[in-house]
């Protein structure tokens, strides 16, 4: 089970990274969400093997599941949810302004590209 989960974590990170390198903001958002899922799964994995529910007086025998990583993952999920909604709002704003959600080059990149272009024309 742990091996399968570990493989899933790896796959989520890989897919997330791939989508993150795209130019459309919607793909980036999905990529970030996948990576966040990977991280949350990793947190669960960090808690070790599954066990009985960690309640006071909750049944008898057997090892208790580690509650802390579950709490951490829950917090992280809430944070990811909020931040992802904000990113989607930003993508929508970009679409309203530009009819496009592509992430543009920054000022410096464009300046360098312009200079290179001019130099090419001169020579």
């Amino acid at each position, binding site marked *: 089970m742990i091996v399968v989960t570990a493989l899933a974590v790896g796959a989520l990170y890989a897919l997330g990274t791939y989508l*993150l390198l795209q130019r459309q*903001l919607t793909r*980036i958002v999905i990529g*970030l969400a996948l*990576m*966040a899922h*990977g*991280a*949350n799964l*990793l*947190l669960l*994995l*960090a*808690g*070790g*093997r599954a*066990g009985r529910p*960690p*309640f*006071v*007086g*909750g049944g008898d025998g057997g*090892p*208790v599941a*580690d*509650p*802390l*990583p579950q709490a*951490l993952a829950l*917090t*992280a999920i809430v*944070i990811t949810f*909020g*931040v992802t909604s*904000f*990113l989607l709002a*930003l*993508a929508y*704003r*970009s679409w309203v*302004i*530009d009819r496009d959600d592509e*992430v*543009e080059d*920054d*000022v*410096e990149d464009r300046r360098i590209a312009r200079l290179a272009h001019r130099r090419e024309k001169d020579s």
Partner: protein
Amino acid sequence: MSRTGVSPDSPIGVRKTREGLTGPAAAMRILLPLPIILPLVAAGISMCLFRRPALQRVLGAAVMVAVVVASIVLLLQVDTHGVAVTQVGGWPAPTGITLVADLFSAIMLVVGAVMVLVVLLYAIGQPGTSETSPWFHPIYLVLAAGVAICFLTGDLFNLFVAFEVMLSASFVLITLGGTKDQVRTGMTYVVISIVASTFFLTAIGLVYAATGTVNMADLAGRLADLPDSVRSALGLLLLVVFGVKDAIFPLFFWLPDSYPTAPSPVTAIFAGLLTKVGVYAIIRTQTLLFPDDGNGTLLLVLAGATMVVGVLGAIAQDDIKRILSFHIVSQIGYMIMGLGLFTVAGLAGAILYTVHHIVVKTSLFLVGGLVEHLGGTGLLRRLGGMARRAPLVGALFLLPALSLAGLPPFSGFVAKLALIQAGMAVDAWLIVGVSLVVSALTLFSMTKIWGGVFWGAPEEPVLTAQPSEGRLRAPSLMVGATVTLVAISLGIALAAGPAYDLSRRAAGDLMAPAVYVEAVLGS
């Protein structure tokens, strides 16, 4: 199940609660959470007052004054009685939520709170900015709370949450105007921040898997028992995470692009505080969790590269805010240099430098805001002759600019002197040489702003409807806030002796983490 010492059936927390009812511990229970709770509660109230901007302003300013007072009391307490700890909810460490203030966090907290207050006043005084949005004040207070949690938390996961609180607030502040430029740069900023946060979460997961705890004091002991390779991998992962947050080479590229598009007060508080929270986190984790990993040389190389790349980037720019943004990157190098030396003197220099930098950088961005307000643009080629028309603004720029370059008798000189002496004490000649050259280049780039904005005539015709003759006047609250910051910066230079002694005591505590660990976990 690696977490030991806690069984779900035992009534933990009782012992600690009983102890905490009297004496200084009881005072700390109230005092330590105050800088976090006050702005958060006020943010909630402020959000309900969205139809009453005047009340929002009074509330925000009053709460920040209270936070400044609480932080100063905390600093005095910590300086006399040692590390202050409280367990929120009464659960003992390492299970509970630990708030802890040693001298370093208390110093950062005081400086941070003062900056938040002064910039808030500046924002209130500036006409026609995003401060007029009903959501500015609540979000700004959340930012203040997030910064306070970062400085006070004693728990790696809470540090992550604090970063998220702070960054979420900063996402909103940086895109509050909703203009095309803000959305474009906001995207880069938000995506980079989230990627770094995901890495942070990954690092926390791996740390927990390896040690079974996320309490930093507890981690200090348990990480030492790990194999060297695992420990240094964790240390480097955390270094990358915080390296993105505080823009060290080669992870700085997002900063000079995103900061300048925000309104001046927002840029000023970001420039002053947010990256420095990253520096705080690097110093805290490297000294407390990974003290013997020999990261010193790596940090020094990064520091040197950060200084050089930042200052060269600044020289190439033509916009006052973009120049200043590249200087943030360059200056971060000095703080990392102090850490990389891994001596008490080096860390003392780094702490003094961080404090000086927060004050000076914030005031420079506020002056940049004044220049944009008066001249209608931040582009050097469209500005000129402001020294004659607004001499006070000229003076307000010149003092922190010379301080940034490290000229005597300003605070930058004192801080750089401390760093360079610390470097020479351990024969780190290369980094000392690099830092001196970068200082000279900083001065050059400051004279470029001076020549472009305050002397001469505009190279290109001014497009805005500014009067081309006569004196220019800025709103008195904006000027007042800037004057306050410049005065604080001069105050640091005047009180250089006591300030250095304080930094040295804080650095001594950082280099002896056993005190911190014992204060949190009990002996």
